[in-house]
Protein backbone atom coordinates (compact mmCIF):
# COMPACT_ATOMS: atom_id res chain seq x y z
CA UNK A 1 0.00 0.00 0.00
CA UNK A 2 2.86 2.32 0.90
CA UNK A 3 4.38 1.62 -2.52
CA UNK A 4 1.12 2.57 -4.25
CA UNK A 5 0.87 5.70 -2.13
CA UNK A 6 4.43 6.70 -3.05
CA UNK A 7 3.76 5.95 -6.74
CA UNK A 8 0.55 7.93 -7.03
CA UNK A 9 1.13 10.71 -4.49
CA UNK A 10 4.83 11.66 -4.77
CA UNK A 11 6.21 13.87 -7.51
CA UNK A 12 8.76 11.24 -8.55
CA UNK A 13 6.20 8.42 -8.44
CA UNK A 14 3.87 10.24 -10.81
CA UNK A 15 6.80 10.82 -13.14
CA UNK A 16 7.45 7.05 -13.11
CA UNK A 17 3.82 6.52 -14.16
CA UNK A 18 4.24 9.16 -16.85
CA UNK A 19 7.48 7.54 -18.05
CA UNK A 20 6.31 3.91 -18.09
CA UNK A 21 3.02 4.75 -19.85
CA UNK A 22 4.95 6.97 -22.25
CA UNK A 23 7.28 4.08 -23.07
CA UNK A 24 4.27 1.79 -23.76
CA UNK A 25 2.67 4.42 -26.01
CA UNK A 26 5.98 4.93 -27.80
CA UNK A 27 6.19 1.17 -28.46
CA UNK A 28 2.62 1.31 -29.81
CA UNK A 29 3.28 4.17 -32.24
CA UNK A 30 6.35 2.35 -33.60
CA UNK A 31 4.35 -0.87 -34.10
CA UNK A 32 1.40 1.00 -35.58
CA UNK A 33 3.66 2.77 -38.08
CA UNK A 34 5.35 -0.44 -39.19
CA UNK A 35 1.92 -2.05 -39.62
CA UNK A 36 0.53 0.88 -41.58
CA UNK A 37 3.54 1.13 -43.89
CA UNK A 38 2.40 -2.21 -45.37
CA UNK A 39 0.01 -0.04 -47.39
CA UNK A 40 2.98 0.45 -49.74
CA UNK A 41 3.15 -3.33 -50.30
CA UNK A 42 -0.26 -3.20 -52.00
CA UNK A 43 -3.87 -4.04 -51.03
CA UNK A 44 -3.29 -7.75 -50.33
CA UNK A 45 -0.57 -7.13 -47.66
CA UNK A 46 -2.38 -4.48 -45.62
CA UNK A 47 -5.78 -6.19 -45.86
CA UNK A 48 -4.33 -9.51 -44.74
CA UNK A 49 -2.60 -7.75 -41.81
CA UNK A 50 -5.82 -5.94 -40.85
CA UNK A 51 -7.80 -9.18 -41.09
CA UNK A 52 -5.25 -10.86 -38.81
CA UNK A 53 -5.61 -8.09 -36.18
CA UNK A 54 -9.40 -8.17 -36.35
CA UNK A 55 -9.51 -11.98 -36.01
CA UNK A 56 -7.64 -12.03 -32.68
CA UNK A 57 -10.98 -11.71 -30.86
CA UNK A 58 -10.70 -11.34 -27.07
CA UNK A 59 -6.99 -10.57 -27.31
CA UNK A 60 -7.79 -7.48 -29.39
CA UNK A 61 -10.13 -6.21 -26.67
CA UNK A 62 -7.58 -6.99 -23.98
CA UNK A 63 -5.01 -4.87 -25.82
CA UNK A 64 -7.59 -2.12 -26.40
CA UNK A 65 -8.49 -1.97 -22.70
CA UNK A 66 -4.81 -1.96 -21.73
CA UNK A 67 -4.18 0.90 -24.18
CA UNK A 68 -7.14 2.82 -22.75
CA UNK A 69 -5.83 2.53 -19.18
CA UNK A 70 -2.29 3.45 -20.28
CA UNK A 71 -3.58 6.55 -22.10
CA UNK A 72 -5.76 7.38 -19.08
CA UNK A 73 -2.83 7.19 -16.65
CA UNK A 74 -0.60 9.18 -19.00
CA UNK A 75 -3.14 11.99 -19.30
CA UNK A 76 -4.05 11.90 -15.59
CA UNK A 77 -0.41 12.28 -14.51
CA UNK A 78 0.16 15.00 -17.11
CA UNK A 79 -2.81 17.05 -15.85
CA UNK A 80 -2.00 16.62 -12.14
CA UNK A 81 1.69 17.42 -12.61
CA UNK A 82 0.96 20.46 -14.81
CA UNK A 83 -1.50 21.91 -12.28
CA UNK A 84 1.08 21.48 -9.52
CA UNK A 85 3.77 23.05 -11.69
CA UNK A 86 1.63 26.11 -12.39
CA UNK A 87 0.85 26.47 -8.68
CA UNK A 88 4.56 26.26 -7.79
CA UNK A 89 5.37 29.33 -9.92
CA UNK A 90 2.54 31.81 -9.29
CA UNK A 91 4.53 34.93 -10.29
CA UNK A 92 6.20 35.09 -13.70
CA UNK A 93 9.32 37.01 -14.56
CA UNK A 94 8.98 40.14 -16.66
CA UNK A 95 10.97 38.48 -19.43
CA UNK A 96 10.35 34.81 -20.27
CA UNK A 97 13.82 33.75 -21.33
CA UNK A 98 13.51 29.94 -20.82
CA UNK A 99 17.28 29.71 -20.59
CA UNK A 100 18.48 26.25 -21.63
CA UNK A 101 14.96 24.83 -22.12
CA UNK A 102 14.01 23.55 -25.60
CA UNK A 103 10.69 24.48 -27.26
CA UNK A 104 9.56 20.84 -27.19
CA UNK A 105 10.25 20.50 -23.46
CA UNK A 106 8.16 23.56 -22.63
CA UNK A 107 5.16 22.59 -24.76
CA UNK A 108 4.62 18.93 -23.82
CA UNK A 109 1.15 19.52 -22.38
CA UNK A 110 0.06 21.48 -25.48
CA UNK A 111 1.40 18.98 -28.02
CA UNK A 112 -0.03 16.20 -25.87
CA UNK A 113 -3.55 17.62 -25.92
CA UNK A 114 -3.56 18.12 -29.70
CA UNK A 115 -2.34 14.53 -30.12
CA UNK A 116 -5.10 13.31 -27.75
CA UNK A 117 -7.73 15.22 -29.78
CA UNK A 118 -6.33 13.73 -32.97
CA UNK A 119 -6.38 10.18 -31.54
CA UNK A 120 -10.06 10.63 -30.68
CA UNK A 121 -10.79 11.78 -34.25
CA UNK A 122 -8.61 9.03 -35.70
CA UNK A 123 -10.54 6.34 -33.76
CA UNK A 124 -13.90 7.72 -34.94
CA UNK A 125 -12.52 8.01 -38.47
CA UNK A 126 -10.94 4.60 -39.08
CA UNK A 127 -11.83 2.35 -36.13
CA UNK A 128 -15.48 3.17 -35.40
CA UNK A 129 -15.83 4.47 -38.99
CA UNK A 130 -18.39 7.17 -38.27
CA UNK A 131 -19.56 8.33 -41.69
CA UNK A 132 -19.96 11.98 -40.67
CA UNK A 133 -16.31 12.58 -39.73
CA UNK A 134 -14.53 11.25 -42.82
CA UNK A 135 -15.61 14.24 -45.01
CA UNK A 136 -15.76 12.10 -48.16
CA UNK A 137 -19.47 11.24 -48.05
CA UNK A 138 -18.67 7.53 -48.31
CA UNK A 139 -19.46 4.84 -45.75
CA UNK A 140 -16.21 3.02 -44.85
CA UNK A 141 -18.11 0.11 -43.26
CA UNK A 142 -19.38 -0.97 -46.69
CA UNK A 143 -15.85 -1.43 -48.17
CA UNK A 144 -15.22 -5.13 -48.70
CA UNK A 145 -12.57 -7.15 -50.47
CA UNK A 146 -11.61 -10.82 -51.01
CA UNK A 147 -8.14 -11.97 -49.98
CA UNK A 148 -6.16 -14.40 -52.15
CA UNK A 149 -7.12 -17.28 -49.83
CA UNK A 150 -10.80 -16.49 -50.46
CA UNK A 151 -11.61 -14.77 -47.15
CA UNK A 152 -14.02 -11.85 -47.48
CA UNK A 153 -12.83 -9.03 -45.24
CA UNK A 154 -12.95 -5.27 -44.69
CA UNK A 155 -11.06 -3.35 -47.42
CA UNK A 156 -8.64 -1.33 -45.28
CA UNK A 157 -6.55 -0.39 -48.31
CA UNK A 158 -9.51 1.30 -49.98
CA UNK A 159 -10.48 2.94 -46.70
CA UNK A 160 -7.00 4.48 -46.35
CA UNK A 161 -6.88 5.67 -49.97
CA UNK A 162 -10.39 7.16 -49.83
CA UNK A 163 -9.88 8.55 -46.32
CA UNK A 164 -6.61 10.35 -47.03
CA UNK A 165 -7.77 11.68 -50.40
CA UNK A 166 -9.51 14.40 -48.36
CA UNK A 167 -6.98 17.23 -48.01
CA UNK A 168 -8.25 18.43 -44.60
CA UNK A 169 -8.13 14.96 -43.08
CA UNK A 170 -4.59 14.47 -44.42
CA UNK A 171 -3.52 17.92 -43.23
CA UNK A 172 -4.77 17.24 -39.68
CA UNK A 173 -2.96 13.90 -39.80
CA UNK A 174 0.34 15.45 -40.86
CA UNK A 175 0.03 18.21 -38.23
CA UNK A 176 -0.74 15.62 -35.53
CA UNK A 177 2.18 13.33 -36.41
CA UNK A 178 4.51 16.37 -36.55
CA UNK A 179 3.42 17.28 -33.02
CA UNK A 180 3.83 13.63 -32.02
CA UNK A 181 7.38 13.82 -33.32
CA UNK A 182 8.02 17.01 -31.32
CA UNK A 183 6.45 15.38 -28.23
CA UNK A 184 8.57 12.23 -28.56
CA UNK A 185 11.75 14.09 -29.51
CA UNK A 186 11.70 15.38 -25.93
CA UNK A 187 9.62 12.62 -24.32
CA UNK A 188 11.82 9.62 -25.14
CA UNK A 189 14.93 11.21 -23.64
CA UNK A 190 12.93 12.55 -20.69
CA UNK A 191 11.27 9.25 -19.81
CA UNK A 192 14.62 7.55 -19.35
CA UNK A 193 15.60 10.47 -17.12
CA UNK A 194 12.40 10.14 -15.05
CA UNK A 195 12.90 6.39 -14.67
CA UNK A 196 16.48 6.95 -13.54
CA UNK A 197 17.96 5.07 -16.48
CA UNK A 198 20.46 7.72 -17.49
CA UNK A 199 24.01 8.59 -16.55
CA UNK A 200 26.76 10.68 -18.13
CA UNK A 201 27.44 7.96 -20.74
CA UNK A 202 23.84 7.06 -21.62
CA UNK A 203 22.31 10.57 -21.54
CA UNK A 204 23.72 11.71 -24.92
CA UNK A 205 23.02 8.30 -26.52
CA UNK A 206 19.38 8.13 -25.36
CA UNK A 207 18.73 11.79 -26.25
CA UNK A 208 20.11 11.20 -29.76
CA UNK A 209 18.06 8.00 -30.10
CA UNK A 210 14.93 9.98 -29.17
CA UNK A 211 15.61 12.70 -31.74
CA UNK A 212 16.36 10.22 -34.54
CA UNK A 213 13.34 7.99 -33.87
CA UNK A 214 11.11 11.11 -33.70
CA UNK A 215 12.20 11.96 -37.27
CA UNK A 216 11.73 8.36 -38.42
CA UNK A 217 8.18 8.40 -37.01
CA UNK A 218 7.14 11.67 -38.65
CA UNK A 219 8.55 10.61 -42.03
CA UNK A 220 7.02 7.13 -41.80
CA UNK A 221 3.57 8.29 -40.77
CA UNK A 222 3.33 11.40 -42.96
CA UNK A 223 4.50 9.48 -46.05
CA UNK A 224 1.14 7.64 -46.19
CA UNK A 225 -1.30 10.57 -46.60
CA UNK A 226 1.21 12.49 -48.74
CA UNK A 227 1.68 9.52 -51.10
CA UNK A 228 -2.09 9.04 -51.36
CA UNK A 229 -2.67 12.75 -52.09
CA UNK A 230 -0.03 12.45 -54.83
CA UNK A 231 -2.03 9.64 -56.41
CA UNK A 232 -0.79 6.43 -54.77
CA UNK A 233 -3.36 3.62 -54.63
CA UNK A 234 -5.80 4.94 -57.27
CA UNK A 235 -4.50 2.41 -59.84
CA UNK A 236 -4.77 -0.53 -57.45
CA UNK A 237 -8.40 0.31 -56.68
CA UNK A 238 -9.50 0.27 -60.32
Amino acid sequence: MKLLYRLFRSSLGRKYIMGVTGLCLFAFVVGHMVGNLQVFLGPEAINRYAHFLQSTGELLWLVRLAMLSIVGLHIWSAVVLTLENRAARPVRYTQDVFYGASYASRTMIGSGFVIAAFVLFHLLHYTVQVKGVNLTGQDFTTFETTLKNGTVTHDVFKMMVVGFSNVWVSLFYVVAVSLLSLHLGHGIGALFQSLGLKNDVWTPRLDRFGKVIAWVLVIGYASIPIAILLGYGKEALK
Partner: protein
Amino acid sequence: MNLTLKVWRQKDANSPGRFETYEARDVIADMSFLEMLDVVNEELIAAGKEPIMFDSDCREGICGTCSLVINGIPHGGHRGTTVCQLHMRHFQDGQTITVEPWRARPFPVIRDLIVDRKAFDRIIQAGGFISVNTGGTPDGNAIPVSKQISDKAMDAAACIGCGACVAACKNASAMLFVSAKVTHLNLLPQGKAEKDRRVARMVSTMDEAGFGNCTVTGSCAAVCPKEIPLDMIAKMNRDYALAIFKGE
Protein backbone atom coordinates in the same frame (compact mmCIF):
# COMPACT_ATOMS: atom_id res chain seq x y z
CA MET B 1 29.22 53.46 -18.35
CA ASN B 2 25.68 54.48 -17.41
CA LEU B 3 22.86 52.01 -16.93
CA THR B 4 19.16 52.05 -16.17
CA LEU B 5 18.02 49.56 -13.55
CA LYS B 6 14.46 48.30 -13.15
CA VAL B 7 14.47 46.81 -9.67
CA TRP B 8 11.72 44.92 -7.82
CA ARG B 9 10.87 46.75 -4.57
CA GLN B 10 8.65 45.15 -1.95
CA LYS B 11 8.29 46.34 1.67
CA ASP B 12 7.61 42.90 3.19
CA ALA B 13 6.10 39.50 2.45
CA ASN B 14 2.53 40.80 2.75
CA SER B 15 2.85 44.04 0.75
CA PRO B 16 2.43 44.16 -3.01
CA GLY B 17 5.67 44.91 -4.84
CA ARG B 18 6.45 46.99 -7.92
CA PHE B 19 9.34 47.85 -10.22
CA GLU B 20 11.26 51.08 -9.54
CA THR B 21 13.65 52.63 -12.01
CA TYR B 22 17.14 53.78 -10.95
CA GLU B 23 20.04 55.29 -12.85
CA ALA B 24 23.49 53.77 -12.23
CA ARG B 25 26.07 56.35 -13.30
CA ASP B 26 29.80 56.00 -13.93
CA VAL B 27 29.78 52.22 -13.54
CA ILE B 28 33.27 50.72 -13.92
CA ALA B 29 33.50 47.61 -16.12
CA ASP B 30 35.57 45.74 -13.50
CA MET B 31 32.86 46.06 -10.83
CA SER B 32 30.83 43.02 -9.96
CA PHE B 33 27.06 43.30 -10.28
CA LEU B 34 26.74 43.50 -6.49
CA GLU B 35 29.41 46.24 -6.23
CA MET B 36 27.42 48.21 -8.80
CA LEU B 37 24.33 47.79 -6.59
CA ASP B 38 26.40 48.91 -3.56
CA VAL B 39 27.24 52.15 -5.36
CA VAL B 40 23.59 52.72 -6.27
CA ASN B 41 22.64 52.05 -2.64
CA GLU B 42 25.22 54.54 -1.32
CA GLU B 43 23.63 57.20 -3.51
CA LEU B 44 20.15 56.21 -2.30
CA ILE B 45 21.27 56.40 1.35
CA ALA B 46 22.94 59.79 0.75
CA ALA B 47 19.65 61.02 -0.75
CA GLY B 48 17.78 59.79 2.34
CA LYS B 49 16.03 56.95 0.51
CA GLU B 50 15.69 53.26 1.38
CA PRO B 51 18.52 51.24 -0.17
CA ILE B 52 17.75 48.20 -2.36
CA MET B 53 17.80 45.11 -0.15
CA PHE B 54 19.55 42.05 -1.56
CA ASP B 55 21.30 38.97 -0.16
CA SER B 56 25.06 38.58 -0.37
CA ASP B 57 27.85 37.15 1.76
CA CYS B 58 31.16 35.74 0.52
CA ARG B 59 31.21 37.58 -2.81
CA GLU B 60 33.47 34.93 -4.31
CA GLY B 61 30.90 32.44 -5.56
CA ILE B 62 31.13 29.82 -2.82
CA CYS B 63 28.41 30.59 -0.28
CA GLY B 64 25.21 30.54 -2.37
CA THR B 65 23.71 33.61 -0.73
CA CYS B 66 23.39 36.02 -3.64
CA SER B 67 20.20 35.43 -5.57
CA LEU B 68 19.18 37.84 -8.32
CA VAL B 69 17.34 37.27 -11.56
CA ILE B 70 18.95 39.56 -14.13
CA ASN B 71 17.09 40.14 -17.40
CA GLY B 72 15.03 37.01 -16.74
CA ILE B 73 17.96 34.66 -15.96
CA PRO B 74 19.03 33.66 -12.44
CA HIS B 75 22.63 34.76 -11.81
CA GLY B 76 22.62 36.58 -15.17
CA GLY B 77 23.24 33.68 -17.56
CA HIS B 78 27.01 33.35 -17.70
CA ARG B 79 28.34 29.81 -17.43
CA GLY B 80 29.24 28.71 -13.92
CA THR B 81 29.01 32.09 -12.21
CA THR B 82 26.98 33.56 -9.37
CA VAL B 83 25.78 37.18 -9.42
CA CYS B 84 28.72 38.25 -7.24
CA GLN B 85 31.06 36.90 -9.95
CA LEU B 86 29.15 38.61 -12.76
CA HIS B 87 31.10 41.61 -13.97
CA MET B 88 29.73 44.78 -15.45
CA ARG B 89 31.88 44.34 -18.58
CA HIS B 90 29.16 41.97 -19.81
CA PHE B 91 26.75 44.92 -20.11
CA GLN B 92 26.66 47.78 -22.55
CA ASP B 93 26.55 51.52 -21.90
CA GLY B 94 22.96 52.75 -21.83
CA GLN B 95 21.48 49.26 -21.30
CA THR B 96 18.34 48.75 -19.23
CA ILE B 97 18.70 45.85 -16.75
CA THR B 98 15.78 44.19 -14.98
CA VAL B 99 16.53 42.85 -11.50
CA GLU B 100 14.01 40.52 -9.83
CA PRO B 101 14.01 38.14 -6.87
CA TRP B 102 13.79 34.32 -7.21
CA ARG B 103 10.17 33.47 -8.08
CA ALA B 104 8.72 30.29 -6.57
CA ARG B 105 5.87 29.59 -4.17
CA PRO B 106 8.19 27.87 -1.64
CA PHE B 107 10.51 30.94 -1.77
CA PRO B 108 8.34 33.87 -0.61
CA VAL B 109 9.81 37.36 -1.02
CA ILE B 110 10.77 38.79 2.39
CA ARG B 111 11.89 42.18 1.16
CA ASP B 112 12.86 43.65 -2.25
CA LEU B 113 15.20 41.06 -3.77
CA ILE B 114 15.49 38.80 -0.71
CA VAL B 115 13.56 35.53 -0.60
CA ASP B 116 13.06 33.04 2.24
CA ARG B 117 14.92 29.82 1.34
CA LYS B 118 14.11 27.92 4.56
CA ALA B 119 12.38 25.27 2.41
CA PHE B 120 15.89 24.13 1.39
CA ASP B 121 16.94 23.93 5.06
CA ARG B 122 13.94 21.69 5.81
CA ILE B 123 14.96 19.35 2.95
CA ILE B 124 18.50 19.12 4.36
CA GLN B 125 17.11 18.47 7.86
CA ALA B 126 15.05 15.61 6.43
CA GLY B 127 18.04 13.64 5.16
CA GLY B 128 20.97 15.77 4.01
CA PHE B 129 23.31 14.38 6.67
CA ILE B 130 25.05 11.18 7.78
CA SER B 131 24.68 9.69 11.26
CA VAL B 132 28.00 8.85 12.96
CA ASN B 133 29.03 8.04 16.49
CA THR B 134 31.38 10.63 17.88
CA GLY B 135 34.73 9.49 19.18
CA GLY B 136 38.37 9.54 18.21
CA THR B 137 39.45 10.83 14.82
CA PRO B 138 39.23 7.96 12.29
CA ASP B 139 42.28 7.10 10.21
CA GLY B 140 42.52 9.06 7.00
CA ASN B 141 42.09 6.19 4.54
CA ALA B 142 40.26 3.71 6.79
CA ILE B 143 37.31 3.64 4.38
CA PRO B 144 38.51 3.21 0.80
CA VAL B 145 36.60 5.27 -1.82
CA SER B 146 37.35 4.81 -5.51
CA LYS B 147 38.52 7.76 -7.55
CA GLN B 148 35.46 7.50 -9.80
CA ILE B 149 33.02 7.63 -6.87
CA SER B 150 34.85 10.36 -5.01
CA ASP B 151 34.98 12.52 -8.15
CA LYS B 152 31.25 12.09 -8.77
CA ALA B 153 30.38 12.76 -5.11
CA MET B 154 32.60 15.84 -5.19
CA ASP B 155 30.84 17.13 -8.33
CA ALA B 156 27.53 16.79 -6.47
CA ALA B 157 28.94 18.33 -3.29
CA ALA B 158 29.81 21.46 -5.30
CA CYS B 159 26.15 22.54 -4.95
CA ILE B 160 26.04 25.73 -2.87
CA GLY B 161 22.27 25.61 -2.36
CA CYS B 162 21.63 29.05 -3.88
CA GLY B 163 18.26 28.03 -5.38
CA ALA B 164 18.96 29.27 -8.92
CA CYS B 165 17.72 25.88 -10.22
CA VAL B 166 14.32 26.51 -8.63
CA ALA B 167 14.29 30.11 -9.85
CA ALA B 168 15.09 29.10 -13.45
CA CYS B 169 12.70 26.14 -13.69
CA LYS B 170 9.34 26.99 -15.26
CA ASN B 171 7.84 24.60 -12.69
CA ALA B 172 9.90 25.91 -9.74
CA SER B 173 11.19 22.37 -9.24
CA ALA B 174 13.92 21.73 -6.67
CA MET B 175 15.04 18.46 -8.27
CA LEU B 176 18.57 19.58 -9.17
CA PHE B 177 19.28 20.80 -5.62
CA VAL B 178 17.81 17.74 -3.90
CA SER B 179 19.42 15.33 -6.36
CA ALA B 180 22.85 16.92 -5.84
CA LYS B 181 22.51 16.42 -2.08
CA VAL B 182 21.17 12.86 -2.48
CA THR B 183 23.90 11.92 -4.99
CA HIS B 184 26.65 13.42 -2.85
CA LEU B 185 25.74 11.37 0.25
CA ASN B 186 24.27 8.22 -1.35
CA LEU B 187 27.42 7.55 -3.38
CA LEU B 188 29.84 7.54 -0.49
CA PRO B 189 30.25 4.62 1.93
CA GLN B 190 29.57 6.92 4.89
CA GLY B 191 26.17 7.81 3.46
CA LYS B 192 25.15 4.44 2.02
CA ALA B 193 23.69 3.08 5.29
CA GLU B 194 20.88 5.66 5.22
CA LYS B 195 20.55 5.75 1.43
CA ASP B 196 16.91 4.67 1.06
CA ARG B 197 15.53 6.55 4.06
CA ARG B 198 17.42 9.68 2.99
CA VAL B 199 16.01 9.85 -0.53
CA ALA B 200 12.46 9.01 0.58
CA ARG B 201 12.44 11.66 3.30
CA MET B 202 14.11 14.37 1.24
CA VAL B 203 11.67 13.82 -1.65
CA SER B 204 8.66 13.89 0.72
CA THR B 205 9.88 17.15 2.28
CA MET B 206 10.50 18.61 -1.17
CA ASP B 207 6.93 17.73 -2.24
CA GLU B 208 5.42 19.10 0.98
CA ALA B 209 7.23 22.42 0.50
CA GLY B 210 5.29 22.95 -2.75
CA PHE B 211 8.06 22.76 -5.33
CA GLY B 212 6.95 21.76 -8.84
CA ASN B 213 7.83 18.60 -10.76
CA CYS B 214 10.71 17.96 -13.12
CA THR B 215 9.82 18.16 -16.83
CA VAL B 216 13.46 17.73 -17.90
CA THR B 217 13.73 21.12 -19.58
CA GLY B 218 17.34 21.52 -18.43
CA SER B 219 17.00 25.18 -17.35
CA CYS B 220 18.27 24.29 -13.87
CA ALA B 221 21.57 22.84 -15.06
CA ALA B 222 21.99 25.71 -17.54
CA VAL B 223 21.90 28.37 -14.79
CA CYS B 224 23.62 26.38 -12.04
CA PRO B 225 26.70 28.36 -10.94
CA LYS B 226 28.36 25.08 -9.97
CA GLU B 227 27.34 23.35 -13.24
CA ILE B 228 25.61 20.41 -11.52
CA PRO B 229 24.58 18.11 -14.42
CA LEU B 230 21.08 16.70 -15.06
CA ASP B 231 22.46 13.16 -14.48
CA MET B 232 22.16 13.85 -10.75
CA ILE B 233 18.38 13.95 -11.18
CA ALA B 234 18.45 10.59 -12.99
CA LYS B 235 20.49 9.17 -10.10
CA MET B 236 17.92 10.44 -7.58
CA ASN B 237 15.05 9.02 -9.65
CA ARG B 238 16.84 5.66 -9.61
CA ASP B 239 17.56 5.78 -5.87
CA TYR B 240 13.97 6.76 -5.04
CA ALA B 241 12.55 3.93 -7.18
CA LEU B 242 14.82 1.40 -5.42
CA ALA B 243 13.90 2.85 -2.02
CA ILE B 244 10.13 2.69 -2.48
CA PHE B 245 10.30 -0.84 -3.90
CA LYS B 246 12.23 -1.83 -0.76
CA GLY B 247 9.31 -0.45 1.28
CA GLU B 248 10.51 3.02 2.29
